[in-house]
């Protein structure tokens, strides 16, 4: 297993490296070069030349890249020309916020999706299953951001029970923090709930036809235990794998949700950086995102080995 993990890590590092190259090049592919934007489009060649010298844009791209990479690996991602703050600090500030939002969203997805999938699996092609599948399909067709707007209309504008926008850190006021994150988490989570439900349903249906479920029934265990424990436990592996595959969509969803609800997380930061042509920030965020994505996939792999004892035991010698 060490060998397998090692391979995965090195592939991930390679991907990360290639990704950072891509980001770097992309940012520099802008018409006129990054100096143009930084110069607030003054067009004065002297200003542009000065900027080029200051930020090293006049060096060959390869040199620039390795200089940037070297600094980045040491934790120095540069300074945002717009805010004047070090990019690294800003990122560190925002990571916990986006992380909290993502975790809550995944929680929502699992809490809704898994039981729904189990219920649908118990009686396939029955009314419950049909309803659940239809709701799931509808859920997949609703654009996230519109769902968010609807929730705001309902709960903030209409009922005045939840705040429409903004954020309060958890250490300052946990209750208010949750109030602000509840709707965003629901919006983000329900999209995945549909996928989780579909996967759980088919995995549980599979499990229910297995021999060990027959044994469990022959032991006189109640149907709830049979389905909810024996069958479900075997299905979790599939569900986790699917969740892992959805991480990319999660990141995309985070950007829109943070925009709709005005949450100061990494997603909003990315968007702002694009609009303000804040390249150091943009580079830093994209690099961080790619790294986070890679790490998350690794975690999914690791949890897979935890959930599946067959993979866990390396050299279990049968007696």
């Amino acid at each position, binding site marked *: 297993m060490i060998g397998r993990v090692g391979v995965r890590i090195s592939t991930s590092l390679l991907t990360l490296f290639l990704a950072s190259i891509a980001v770097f090049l992309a940012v520099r592919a802008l018409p006129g070069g990054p100096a143009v934007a930084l110069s607030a489009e003054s067009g004065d060649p002297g200003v542009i030349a000065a900027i080029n010298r200051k930020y090293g844009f006049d060096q060959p791209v390869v040199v620039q890249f390795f200089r940037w990479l070297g600094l980045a690996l040491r934790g120095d991602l540069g300074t945002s020309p717009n805010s004047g703050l070090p990019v690294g600090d800003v990122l560190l500030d925002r990571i916990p916020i986006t992380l909290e939002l993502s975790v809550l969203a995944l929680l929502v997805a699992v809490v809704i999706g898994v039981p729904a999938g189990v219920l649908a699996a118990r009686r396939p092609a029955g009314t419950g299953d049909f309803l659940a599948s239809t709701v799931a399909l509808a859920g997949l067709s609703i654009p996230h951001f519109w769902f968010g707007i609807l929730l705001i209309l309902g709960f903030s504008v209409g009922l005045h029970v939840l705040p429409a926008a903004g954020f309060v850190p958890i250490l300052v006021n946990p209750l208010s923090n949750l109030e602000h994150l509840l709707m965003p988490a629901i919006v983000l989570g329900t999209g995945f709930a549909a996928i989780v439900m579909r996967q759980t349903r088919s995995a549980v249906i599979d499990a229910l036809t297995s021999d*060990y479920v027959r*044994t469990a029934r*022959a032991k006189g265990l109640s149907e709830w235990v049979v389905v909810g424990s*024996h069958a479900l436990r075997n299905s979790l592996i599939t569900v986790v794998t699917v969740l892992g595959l959805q991480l990319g969509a999660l990141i995309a969803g985070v950007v829109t949700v943070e925009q709709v609800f005005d949450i100061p997380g990494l997603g909003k930061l990315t968007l702002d950086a694009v609009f303000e042509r804040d390249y150091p920030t943009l580079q830093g965020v994209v690099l961080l995102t790619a790294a986070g994505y890679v790490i998350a996939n690794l975690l999914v792999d690791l949890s897979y080995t935890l959930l599946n004892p*067959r993979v866990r035991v390396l050299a279990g010698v049968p*007696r």
Partner: protein
Amino acid sequence: MNGRPVLGVTDLRVRFDTDDGPLLAVDGMSFDVHPGEVLALVGESGCGKSMTALSVLGLQPPNARVTGSIRLGGREILGLESRALRSIRGREIAMVFQEPMSSLNPVFKVGRQIAEVLRKHEKMSAAAARRRAVELLELVRVPTPERVVDEYPHQLSGGMQQRVMIAMAVACDPKLIIADEPTTSLDVTIQAQVLEIFRRLRDRLDTAIILITHDLGVVADIADSVVVMYAGHKMEQAPVMELFERPRHPYTKGLLGTVPRAGLSGTRRELVEIPGSVPLLRSAPTQCVFADRCAYRQDDCRAESPVIREIGVAAQVACLHPVEVVVRS
């Protein structure tokens, strides 16, 4: 092998409604099993022996229709509602399946799967159940039970897995154990060990055992009485020695012909295969179900389906022209 039967089955019929029409998997099976008796249920694949066993516990597939009477110690259990059935399963009647690797849940430790039965039926605490699980593993002669109890099924060999299944079955001291081809997927040496465990259960705990198998060697080894099944029907039933020495039904004769035995010169006889295969019944048969493959077939065998009747000492046969040839082994 005396006293009131643990299990009484009368006229059991199992019918499937498939897309291609009805299928009679079991058509009129009747037998009794007594405490301390090993009843072997013998036949080729597809003859309905597994379906008979599953129906006893109510584990038949949802599209199966079961009729007849199944009595556990005098109490009718066919058609019992779920909760009552569940209190019987694992507690009064337990089952051991053929493929232990796939019949054990791969993601739960072996000890937990054994303890599960104890916690469900005897309301034991986790600690007590675990201790009892270790004892049960000892009972089935699993080495280092303290360690095995924390292992996963895939870490054990086939023979060990089967012993775990048996331990699970014996946990609540059931009156009847149904073992469906328990040794088929094991090698011969392990087979002997597993059969030894069954023997001890019968001798020490007076457990009744229904042993489903297509292997006559196993039957000769451990069975007390034998029911020979074909196409969902009982062809013959007799105490084991009687069956081997004086098989009456042509099918039984044919089966016994396929058991490799040392001839007078010490060499093996050829395996005699019965040509043809087990038919699938679509409706109540109008002729003897074995007629098409029977070497002793006569005209009236095609005119009616023979009813089982008593013959000889404690034996039954469903044949219009049973063969009365004494076979010395």
